[in-house]
């Protein structure tokens, strides 16, 4: 959970920074998308780095979900008889709900997100359009933007606990209360970064 989560967080940071290229205009954004495919060429084949990243990400996602299912099944086996009273959370109950249901929401969103912007299947501009056009068209539908915003906020809430929890699981969090603040801050930065692009499209700053 912790190791695969860490890989995914690193990817999110890169993804968010890449998104901010939007503000540099269509050429810069499309150029960046092209660069991702050609980085290191001819030393590495075209799409070489991208394919590597994709393989690692898919593996991380699969293992992350597999760990979650394993944890869930262990938890269910450890408490075969449930409490008659709804167990009242003494720690806010935040973690239990956000991690599990937030995780499911995020997984669904990622599927849609890939269909929309990567493959262009669910995109009004289609897969042949430039990445920039696909993005603008994708976010020109309010319900897509809404779904995106909900999912991104879920990611933030998921990471607020997940980041700190990863340090805890790897035995690094002992006595370092600052890590909780760090986790919350990094999550907030990611959420704001990811939300800035569709927000800019919505208010018409980016066309």
């Amino acid at each position: 959970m912790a190791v695969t989560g860490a890989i995914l967080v690193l990817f999110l940071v890169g993804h968010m920074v890449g998104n901010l290229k939007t503000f540099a205009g269509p050429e810069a954004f499309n150029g960046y998308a092209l660069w991702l495919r050609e980085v290191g060429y001819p030393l590495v084949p075209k799409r070489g780095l991208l394919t590597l990243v994709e393989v690692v990400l898919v593996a991380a996602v699969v293992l992350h979900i597999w760990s979650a299912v394993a944890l869930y099944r262990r938890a269910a086996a450890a408490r075969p008889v449930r409490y008659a009273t709804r167990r009242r959370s003494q720690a806010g109950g935040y973690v239990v709900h956000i991690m599990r249901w937030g995780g499911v929401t995020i997984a669904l969103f990622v599927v849609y997100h890939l269909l929309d912007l990567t493959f262009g299947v669910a995109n009004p501009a289609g897969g042949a359009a430039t990445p920039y056009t696909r993005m603008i068209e994708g976010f020109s539908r309010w319900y897509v933007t809404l779904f995106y915003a909900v999912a991104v906020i879920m990611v933030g809430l998921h990471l607020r606990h997940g980041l700190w929890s990863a340090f805890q699981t790897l035995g690094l969090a002992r006595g370092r209360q600052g890590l909780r603040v760090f986790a919350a801050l990094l999550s907030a930065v990611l959420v704001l970064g990811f939300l800035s692009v569709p927000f800019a499209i919505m208010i018409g700053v980016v066309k």
Partner: protein
Amino acid sequence: MNLTLKIWRQHSPDEPGQMVKYHVKDVSPDMSFLEMLDVLNEGLILAGDDPVAFDHDCREGICGMCGMVINGVAHGEQKATTTCQLHMRHFKDGDVVTIEPWRAAPFPVIKDLVVDRSAFDRIIQAGGFVSVPAGAAPDAHAVPVPKGDADDAFDAATCIGCGACVAACPNGSASLFTGAKITHLGSLPQGRPERASRAKTMVEQMDLEGFGGCTNTGECTAVCPKGISLDVIARMNADFLKASR
């Protein structure tokens, strides 16, 4: 005050149990929760009924025998308090109070509110000790211990092994208990040589007993009558990873 109690009654480990409703009258606010149950039981015995079985021993919050889930919270809603130290002044006349045993597969119900916590004993047997004969209590200045280490060991050693952490954990994990024991022993010079191997054997035993995995929800430390911190779990993980390397 008068209370309505809904208590889990289960005759034996293999028989199914159910929640049964009782009324207790004239409960004094100065009574402890267990004294209130004593009053209930006296009435049940006089009426020729089977009294409610529950664990208790010291009744002063230091032995770890008592423990029940009161209104959905292990040891009740009062923070850092064992069931025996919970007083009836925290309840109001007419309250309905549900009382259930710890719920976890490794803690099977023996009778009513009494569960078998031998799983904890087996975790201790797996490594919760110091192998060298450490002798009688050493002179305070014989082996210097840094203040920070002494504090860590002392804080962790306040764990009374009641099992509330398991009862409260949505995953049914025993990480807070095991972490406390590992921190308690591993922080002191006498326990340090076995620090990594101890973590490994104890964690393995914990998993073998069927406890769930920790997801750091923090429910355990919130109900812990001794306020053991989640730091002990980080410590357990660090020692365990070291031993697995």
